[in-house]
């Protein structure tokens, strides 16, 4: 039931618009690059200092001097450019990047996001996530609707340390597409074969259902 990670990425790719500069986070967001719709030109920004990021290199062509923000070896497309970290975050803070897609552990129905720390268990750091969520106008979260224990990740309030407040615009999960509104999660679309009831049961935060909720088209 519901979408797999590639399905979530495929649905998010439908949000790409011609001419967008896009920053993709680690995990499901990275997969979005595999589903760019035909006729849409976008350029990927990697916050460690490049625009025009291409696919992984062929075996034997990888370089320690060419990595993405997840430290994976990558390639540069024609028209690519490298720059330093301060310039990179000027692009981000200055809102020159049109769309940010990132993963999350929790999202609240006011658009708060938690994705960098589990006290006493995981302390790796926020990397560029706090800068991205504080400044970007258009932030889509890609994640599973529930955690491994089956608990909702779409909450009334986040319980984990926050990455940013009132910043997420949309959430795409294995079950649904939801928009953050002042009154809570507005259910826009259901994943194929998923009922409104199932989404209700998996959502702890305030859920708004208006009329018939269409199924996603993938």
């Amino acid at each position, binding site marked *: 039931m519901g979408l797999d990670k590639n399905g979530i990425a495929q649905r998010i790719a439908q949000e790409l618009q011609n001419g967008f500069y896009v920053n993709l986070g680690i995990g499901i967001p990275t997969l979005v690059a595999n589903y760019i719709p035909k006729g849409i030109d976008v350029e990927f920004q*990697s*916050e*460690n*200092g*490049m625009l025009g990021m291409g*696919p*992984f*290199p*062929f*075996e*034997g*062509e*990888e*370089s*320690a*001097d*060419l*990595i*993405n*923000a*997840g*430290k*994976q*070896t*990558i390639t*540069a497309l024609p028209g690519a450019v*490298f*720059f*330093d*970290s*301060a310039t*990179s*975050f000027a692009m*981000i*803070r200055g809102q020159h990047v049109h769309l940010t897609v990132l993963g999350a552990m929790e999202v609240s129905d006011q658009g*708060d996001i938690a994705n960098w720390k589990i006290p006493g268990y995981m*302390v*790796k*750091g*926020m*990397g*560029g*996530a*706090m*800068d991205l969520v*504080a*400044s970007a106008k258009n932030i889509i979260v890609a994640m599973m609707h529930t955690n491994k224990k089956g608990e909702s990740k779409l909450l009334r309030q986040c319980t984990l*340390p*926050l*990455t*940013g*407040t*009132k910043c997420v615009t949309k959430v795409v999960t294995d079950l649904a597409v939801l928009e953050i509104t002042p009154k809570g999660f507005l259910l826009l679309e259901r994943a194929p074969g998923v009922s409104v009831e199932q989404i209700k049961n998996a959502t702890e935060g305030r859920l708004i259902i208006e009329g018939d909720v269409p199924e996603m088209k993938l």
Partner: protein
Amino acid sequence: MALNKVVANAEEAIRGIEDNMTVMFGGFGLSGIPENSIVALRKNGAKGLTCISNNAGVDGFGLGVLLETRQVKKMISSYVGENEEFERQMLSGELEVDLIPQGTLAERCRAAGAGIPAFYTPAGYGTEVALGKEVRWFNGKPHLLEQAFDASFAFVKAWKGDTAGNLVYKGTSRNFNHAMSMAGKVTVAEVEELVEVGELDPNEIHTPGIFIQRIYKGERFEKRIEQRTVRKKEA
């Protein structure tokens, strides 16, 4: 005449390092880290260092080698995963760790080099990063006051450099190296290729030599890759 910043080797380049200093290291992950200066610091044995670096290296490479010898008192970083010794020292309380947003880290370096003592940024508002920081609203949005770093040394790495300290980086290895080169009271650049002045095209220099006090050709560059990801060639 162009100034000559060349020193013979890493040992000479780190001269003046003392216990308890605050020191910057360029690099993102293991890309563009000043490997040779790090090895020299390990041999030197200076202790109690506060290290400003986006990441903390891995076990046995990069800043990981200074963690092994307990030379680091405090790390200021944005992301510190993938290092078991780091995690052990942090959880046991041997190592102080200050995690800060990556863009704030970069800007605190840039500001230090640009004579800007502090600045406001929206990053971290409403999170634990904001604790104890002044909040001010601009254009209807809350911002945190962040201060420029104060570092005695900055260690950076470039692809090519000339004897006057002008630097050119390769690919994404530029990362924090440029802003940190501006920020150090003494900035030490290690390069893969050291050339005479006039050999680099002035139009294509990334870091002007004015920010560099010492430059040397690194003895050995391992340039380890942290996450080797490749695709297969279609037959």
